[in-house]
């Protein structure tokens, strides 16, 4: 008897779920909404500013080419290298060297952002970095300087209903 009651209970539980809203969202048609515009770092206070850690953005006019980010990345993923950009003349950066990031290696830990004392390297909330070949994952300084595209609509967010959660 207990067997049957418990079995009916589990059937009831399963059937209850049938009438609730679904959890999944249809990724290429809908995209996840991410709050803020990425992880930043305040070098004076030594504290990061909350945000999603996606692909980087490089402010060329602030970068001095000090290579601190490269040194930080050495032990983590060796994704950053310094590259000479001859046609960029910036007063603080005499040698015109800037970081380039290989996203096939990057682990998005964001310690390069923490390492930068000049607020030149931040992370954005762009996470869709896919490609058919490894070469196009290597972002040159000019590519890194481009702010990320606005995510196409519709974006969805996790919502809490009465007894269910759903994306909407």
């Amino acid at each position, binding site marked *: 008897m207990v067997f049957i009651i418990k079995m009916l209970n589990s059937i009831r539980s399963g059937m209850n779920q049938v009438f609730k809203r679904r959890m*999944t969202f249809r990724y290429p048609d809908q995209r996840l909404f991410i709050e803020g515009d990425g992880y930043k770092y305040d070098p004076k206070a*030594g504290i990061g500013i909350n945000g999603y850690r996606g692909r980087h953005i490089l402010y060329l006019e602030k970068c001095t080419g000090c290579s601190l980010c490269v040194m930080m990345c050495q032990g983590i993923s060796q994704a950053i290298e310094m590259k000479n950009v001859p046609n960029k003349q910036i007063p603080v950066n005499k040698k015109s060297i800037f970081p380039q990031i290989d996203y096939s290696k990057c682990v998005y*830990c964001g310690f390069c952002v923490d390492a930068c004392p000049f607020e030149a390297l931040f992370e954005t909330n762009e996470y869709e970095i896919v490609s058919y070949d490894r070469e196009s994952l290597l972002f040159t300084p000019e590519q890194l300087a481009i702010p990320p595209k606005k995510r196409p609509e519709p974006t969805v967010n996790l919502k809490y*209903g009465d007894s269910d959660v759903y994306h909407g």
Partner: protein
Amino acid sequence: MSKLSLSVGPQHPGSGHMRIILTLSGDYIIEAIPDPGYVHRGEEKLAEYRTYIQNIPHLERPVLLDATGAIFPYILAVEDLMNIIVPERAQFIRVIMAELNRIISHLYYMAIYGIFMGHSTMFMWPVGDREVFIDLANNIAGQRVSYAFLVPGGVRNDMPEIVKERAEKACNYFEKHLIEYERIFMNNPLFEKRTKGVGILSKQDAIRLGVVGPTLRASGVKSDVRKDDTYSVYDQLDFEIPVSNACDSWSRAWIHMEEMRQSMSIIRQCLKRIPAGPVKLNLKQIKVPPGESFSRVEAARGTLSYYLISDGGKVPYRVRIMTPSFRNLITIPNIMKGVMLADMPPTYWGIDYWPVEADR
């Protein structure tokens, strides 16, 4: 009766990245020899070549499901050597992250338990509900899985205020859904029949073999590092340690269910009590004086300990990682003896063995 030797794994839906060499007599397992090492990365060696900060993203890699729990003792050891006291707000945020991770890891446990028992609904529900907590962790730490969030001296960034409201909603929802979990899975008569009394690890054996985590508590030992060897702000929080004297696979799953409830209670308390203030000491440089430190925390799967030796240089001299899975590996030959082949998956997964974590 003639014996049959069966290699379960590494390419088997019920093993993960490891191999268990079984010897069967009829349908009963008479010997089980675990053979780990398929995902060994040598993190202990590589940690000797990286600075203390550079180690953080790497040392959480073996335990991705429980990234905060994996890195927590390392941070504690470094801070112990550096002799610094972390701001209280940072301590609370650390505890919140650790408990979120515990829920995430336990949900994964329930999911795989479900699919190992052929219960596809129990696979999908926890995986879906994990998203709720991953989303919360993403709001706090800025990443979904590998946070690299804890650093010596605090946490990397402050927690946004929106988390309070969302976490409350998430906990409310999930507490309701946990009841459904119990109805459909834990109290399902077929599941009870299959796992009650299977994979017995007696209290004496559990103590003798030095088992940790939910497996230990399912064997009737009320031990939890959060209470025994309290760290961070756990001594200010009020929570229970679920213990079961049944010593079987079912009670191991039950312990996980109860721990998720306790974790939610801890998160609620933390969000209520969290003080304002700084979240990180402004350390210009991580300079670790020579010495050695042993630190342990209760990660999701059990006691995770680091033995850190520093010689005062930029990199650690020796990092010894002892993960709960590696310590629970010793139970596999013990509890698998005498169970049926069909009970291999619940017995194996009951101890929450995660090959990557064990191999490091």
